């Protein structure tokens, strides 16, 4: 039962805290040797007589330390000694590890062992759990100076290399279908008997259908077409008038004109922005939102940037590049830096700085791992994250590739950047100060917390407060030109005091407004959405864990510097191996040069996504867009184009669209139109016997896929049906669970800790990770929400109120049908409705119409 959790193992030993999960070798699959044995009392500093021989010195002063502090990770019996360094044999010690020799007998200054032991090497500090006592280090210095006499056996035990998972070879990997270049295909010839293609898309679909002797379904009726187009491009159903205007337009270009018009609507950006926000795991806060990972007050600016960018049809490659590296792109405007919310408002963990350096180091690598996962699955449809612990079992991604990417994010620090222009030096200074002050203010606050105690707390308080004061002076000098920036830092020196919080609303009672507004104006909660002129972004700085104080761990930020990460054996920060320069995964790279050369490499990463892996990036996005129009992609696993994912159902079509997407300057509006103009898109979604028989799952697309509206489209459509939808765009997020929240759903606050009730009910994804698509479920709770919820009752009341203005029940019913279902009732429906009204009310009837299949369904 001695299993340990490798990544999260705590490894403090004699000088630190305790081990968790002892067990020398854990599960073989993710084996990591924990430091065995908790407390070992070292006898240090006892005087040795002058006659002590070198051998005795070794036995008395050196060997015990090696045994107790080093062997557990560096011994010849291990399958994979850390850093390939073996310290329990003489030869091993002389040979060194992955970084080469560690010992230069007679020359302490040249011995890396000493550097590592004295914690002066920024990357490798041993033992990982805490620095040895100075006296012990002194012993080592003396021992090395005197020739590093080592009486131990020379012959190393049979230390075999670690059995590593070897994925596919690089060569085989490069042949993988999704990594092949894309090229436009010639349209397959379609015989008239196979059906009539409207555009090139159809030729591929028809060819495949013909193999099964199937044809496309007939074009859907015009009402369905206009509804699809509105939901597809704007995210809500059309009104009666909007439907009528399309029905009455009998020109041959009516449909195309409709698409063109909707593509120009500002609400297009809202619909498509929300799609992208699933992929970008957009949220306004963090999974736990504790002291060091408070909510993001300016995430909404990133959301607004997404909407604006899609509305101007920013090329998709630039759209992604700005999100990764706007701060490094010379042609990016300051307002484009809002895009950095992609990295700067990413989910992060709470870093309780009282935890050991290894634990904090692990949290940081968790944060960076999340970035790698978001980019690799979101943009490239590849899951790279497996390579954190071992070479990818299936895809040709190695741990080296992985840590080469991690260096990019280890050299990128989240920060609030000003929206107004600031000269680069001052801005850099501001951003560094902000991070440093944040950590100091957090730490000082901890000291004052009841129930919290520190080793040397009083001493620390004095020191930290002095440091804060020193930074104040520094800020005053270096930011003199920008009083506004100095002002924004004031919250760290003078934390706003909040009055005792009102008792939190009972769980489940969301949407209930507090009875009375607080009498006294409160300073905003940390992280509350704010209109101050800042944005959640990132800047270039290397991050390290400073564990030199074994009782308190700091994170250091080195602006303008970069950090290359070591390969972490089994993902364990305490087992660093070879250091890998930042770079692009070899299997994806065009050419042998994978290294990133400028700064963190974020911009090079962003650029190579659209040069080296342009074909893959285009395929992935084309497939997503296809999926948003058809309910599922040509590749069913939208975020996995690797060997574990599905293969495309129509590879030539995917290739052709991807190639033409690139040719059309990565224009999403072009792509949307190309897909929507096709007969495949426009066909009816009704079941057909021959189709069901030959291809029940509709893989070949013999019909369009009908769907339930997603959470946002449903809420927006309901609100619009009641005439209450407020189309004001942009700005601070609101609480969508408030009954009188009538803005579009995209402007509701997205919480990683707690999904909005209504959205969650209708399968809104969790925003902790990039979501490849939406589940569509039908649940009893959804129906109860529709039957009894006050939100829906309020909508019904509003709709009924406006219908009540008409004279006569028949006219009122007609108005409700037009308002909610965007059509006139049939004679039979009118008759039934009139009968209903003998028992029910107009408002209840409005609620019935809002709850219908017809309202929630997209045929």
């Amino acid at each position: 039962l001695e299993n340990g959790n490798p990544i999260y193992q705590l490894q403090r030993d004699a000088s630190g805290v305790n081990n968790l999960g002892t067990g020398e070798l854990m599960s073989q699959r993710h084996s990591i040797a924990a430091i065995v044995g908790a407390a070992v009392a070292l006898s240090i500093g006892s005087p040795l007589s002058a006659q002590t021989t070198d051998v005795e010195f070794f036995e008395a002063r050196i060997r015990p330390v090696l045994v107790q502090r080093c062997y557990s990770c560096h011994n010849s019996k291990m399958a994979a000694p850390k850093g390939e360094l073996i310290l329990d044999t003489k030869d091993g010690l002389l040979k060194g590890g992955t970084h080469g020799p560690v010992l230069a007998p007679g020359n302490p200054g040249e011995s890396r062992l000493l550097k590592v032991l004295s914690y002066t090497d920024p990357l490798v500090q041993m033992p990982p759990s805490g620095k040895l006592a100075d006296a012990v280090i002194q012993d080592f210095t003396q021992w090395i100076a005197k020739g590093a006499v080592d009486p131990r056996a020379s012959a190393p035990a049979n230390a075999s290399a670690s059995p590593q998972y070897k994925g596919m070879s690089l060569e085989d990997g490069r042949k993988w279908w999704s990594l092949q270049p894309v090229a436009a295909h010639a349209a397959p010839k379609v015989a008239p008997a196979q059906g009539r293609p409207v555009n090139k898309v159809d030729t591929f679909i028809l060819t495949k259908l013909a193999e099964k002797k199937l044809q496309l379904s007939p074009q859907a009726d015009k009402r369905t077409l206009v509804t699809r187009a509105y939901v597809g491009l704007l995210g809500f159903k059309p009104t009666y008038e909007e439907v009528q205007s399309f029905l009455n337009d009998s020109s041959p270009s009516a449909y195309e004109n409709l698409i063109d018009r909707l593509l120009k609507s500002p609400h297009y950006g809202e619909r498509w922005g929300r799609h992208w926000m699933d992929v970008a795991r957009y949220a306004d806060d963090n999974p736990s939102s504790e002291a060091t990972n408070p909510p993001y007050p300016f995430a909404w600016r990133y959301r607004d940037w997404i909407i604006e960018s899609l509305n101007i049809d920013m090329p998709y490659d630039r759209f992604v590049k700005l999100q990764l590296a706007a701060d490094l792109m010379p042609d990016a405007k300051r307002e484009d830096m809002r895009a950095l919310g992609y990295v700067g408002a990413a989910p992060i963990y709470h870093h309780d700085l009282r935890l050991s350096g290894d634990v904090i180091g692990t949290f940081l690598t968790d944060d960076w791992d999340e970035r790698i996962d978001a980019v690799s699955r979101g943009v490239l449809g590849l899951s790279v994250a497996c390579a954190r612990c071992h070479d990818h079992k299936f895809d040709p991604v190695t741990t080296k590739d992985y840590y080469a990417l991690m260096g990019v994010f280890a050299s990128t620090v989240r920060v609030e950047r000003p929206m107004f222009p600031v000269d680069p030096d001052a801005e850099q200074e501001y951003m560094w100060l902000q991070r440093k002050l944040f950590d100091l203010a957090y730490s000082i606050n901890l000291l004052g917390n009841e129930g919290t105690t520190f080793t040397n707390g009083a001493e620390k308080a004095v020191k930290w407060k002095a440091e804060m004061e020193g930074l104040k002076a520094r800020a005053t000098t270096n930011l003199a030109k920008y009083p506004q920036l100095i002002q924004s830092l004031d919250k760290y020196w003078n934390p706003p005091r909040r009055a005792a919080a009102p008792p939190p609303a009972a769980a489940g009672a969301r949407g209930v407004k507090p009875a009375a507004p607080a009498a006294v104006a409160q300073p905003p909660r940390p992280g509350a959405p704010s209109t101050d002129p800042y944005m959640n972004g990132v800047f270039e700085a290397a991050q390290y864990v400073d564990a030199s104080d074994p009782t308190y761990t700091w994170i250091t930020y080195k602006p303008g510097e970069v950090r290359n990460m070591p390969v972490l054996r089994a993902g364990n920060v305490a087992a660093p191996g070879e250091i890998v320069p930042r770079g692009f995964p070899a299997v994806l790279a065009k050419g042998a040069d994978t290294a990133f050369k400028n700064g963190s490499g974020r911009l090079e990463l962003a650029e190579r996504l659209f040069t080296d892996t342009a074909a893959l990036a285009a395929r992935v996005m084309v497939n997503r867009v296809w999926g948003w129009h058809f309910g599922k992609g040509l590749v069913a696993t939208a975020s996995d184009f690797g060997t574990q994912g599905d293969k495309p159902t129509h590879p030539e079509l995917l290739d052709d669209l991807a190639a033409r997407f690139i040719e059309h300057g990565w224009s999403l509006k072009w792509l949307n139109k190309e897909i929507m103009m096709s007969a495949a898109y426009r066909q009816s979604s009704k079941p057909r016997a021959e189709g069901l028989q030959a291809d029940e799952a509709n893989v070949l697309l013999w019909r369009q896929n009908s769907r339930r509206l997603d959470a946002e489209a449903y809420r927006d459509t309901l609100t619009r049906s009641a005439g209450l939808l407020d189309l004001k765009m942009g700005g601070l997020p609101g609480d969508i669970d408030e009954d009188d929240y009538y803005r579009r759903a995209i402007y509701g606050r997205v919480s990683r800790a707690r999904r909005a009730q209504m959205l969650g009910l209708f399968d809104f994804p969790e925003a902790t990770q990039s979501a490849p698509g939406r589940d569509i479920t039908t649940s009893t709770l959804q129906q109860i929400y529709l039957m009894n919820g006050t939100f829906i009752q309020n909508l019904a009341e509003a709709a009924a109120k406006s219908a009540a203005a008409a004279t006569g029940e028949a006219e009122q019913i007609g108005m409700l049908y037009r308002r909610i279902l965007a059509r006139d009732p049939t004679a039979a429906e009118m008759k039934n409705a009139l009968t209903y009204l003998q028992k029910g009310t107009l408002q209840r009837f409005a609620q019935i119409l809002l709850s219908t299949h017809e309202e929630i369904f997209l045929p």
Partner: protein
Amino acid sequence: MKIKLSRREMLEALGGGMGLFGLAGAFSGWSGGEVHAAGLGNYTGPSLPAKAKHVIMIYLNGGPSQIDMFDPKPALFKYAGQRPSAVDLRTERVTAGLMPSPFEFKRYGRNGVEISELLPQLATVVDEMCIIRSMYTFNPTHTPARALLHTGSVLATRPSTGSWVTYGLGTENQNLPAFVALASPGGPMTRSGFLPSEYQGVNFPVNDPDPEKIIPNITNKKIDAAAQRVDMDALLALNQSYTKSFGADQFLEGRIKSMETAYRMQFEALELFDIRKEPQNIRDEYGPTPFGTGCLLARRLVEAGVRFVNVDYPGGQIWDDHRDVADNLRKRCPDMDQAAAALIRDLKRRGLLDETLVVWGGEFGRTPVSESGSGRDHNPYGYTMFVAGGGFKGGISYGATDEFGFKAEQNRVSIHDLHATLLHQLGMDHTKLTYRYAGRDFRLTDVFGEVVTDILA
């Protein structure tokens, strides 16, 4: 590829033994085969003979002090105030010397298991309890440790145990959610993560026993049941006519059923969630507190076929006794003790204990050394949890911490081992309960965990 069998049919076909899988209806959702077939990956349904069908997980948020409740250590008296050098007692905060528990331990039950005077009621049901004194976990901070307890990982993305169990076994009552959380702050306790959202825990507050306060929107405030029926019929007619004009469609047909179920559910749930319907003596047995309400409600839900119930001791992270641990436990233990014991007793009386796993614990325990004079710091190195029912041995304590109660030493049980053992009792091999996501088969126990067969009857 669409698989023609619904997931339920598939599980029924493959599962064997458990009979009542019902994923396709009602609360548990109606998602068609596709989404699930994709994620199902290699999972083929429960494969072991199941001892238990339900889980009630009692969660004491903050880290309850095992030293004062379940793990007596006479050595603490001998070394009171000292820090013996034989054991490194360091944790994240500054702590002082060993602090013996002021609470008296006595032996109870057929095997004479020691329990502290804080828990006189649980002491009476000790013969049903398997007290694991050698638990350990992997993080000393609340949030990650809580995630480990509930999801088997510190990551903020993984599905909760309840989600895994309902994914693996489905529901027994299509009119109720399969996975319910009572008084839970959500997050890792109810998260479905990459599992389909229908497996998310449905959270209900219990600070008021009025079911209308517990289930939002359960009652229509505007019209009575008869009028609602009229509306439901009108809606049904419209939906049926729409379905007819569209053609056979799983979603449209499913939604009609779901509405009908919802209509009935309102009344059923109103009844079910109303603990005031219980005889007074039963209510008294559980006690008139929110936690008593939670435990009693948990029993009613399990009885009605709910698969997994999380019951939090309400009030947030309040078992986090960095100071005044003794005084706080004196205040907090009585109602916890009463309700938890009542739950075990009541399940036993109704013959439900054999098929219900009652799990009790926090995200970690507390140190034997004092903090701030009167408190105890977090201790993930060795702590106590107990399991009652579900085929676990009763009346035993298992494993041991060191002399001072700091670190688990004998028969160590990691949080992964506990998860593996719980799944085992539910008929699932923890290495085979997988979900394919991002190119990998994920597990509750990741690559860890061993079934602790010693504690199984």
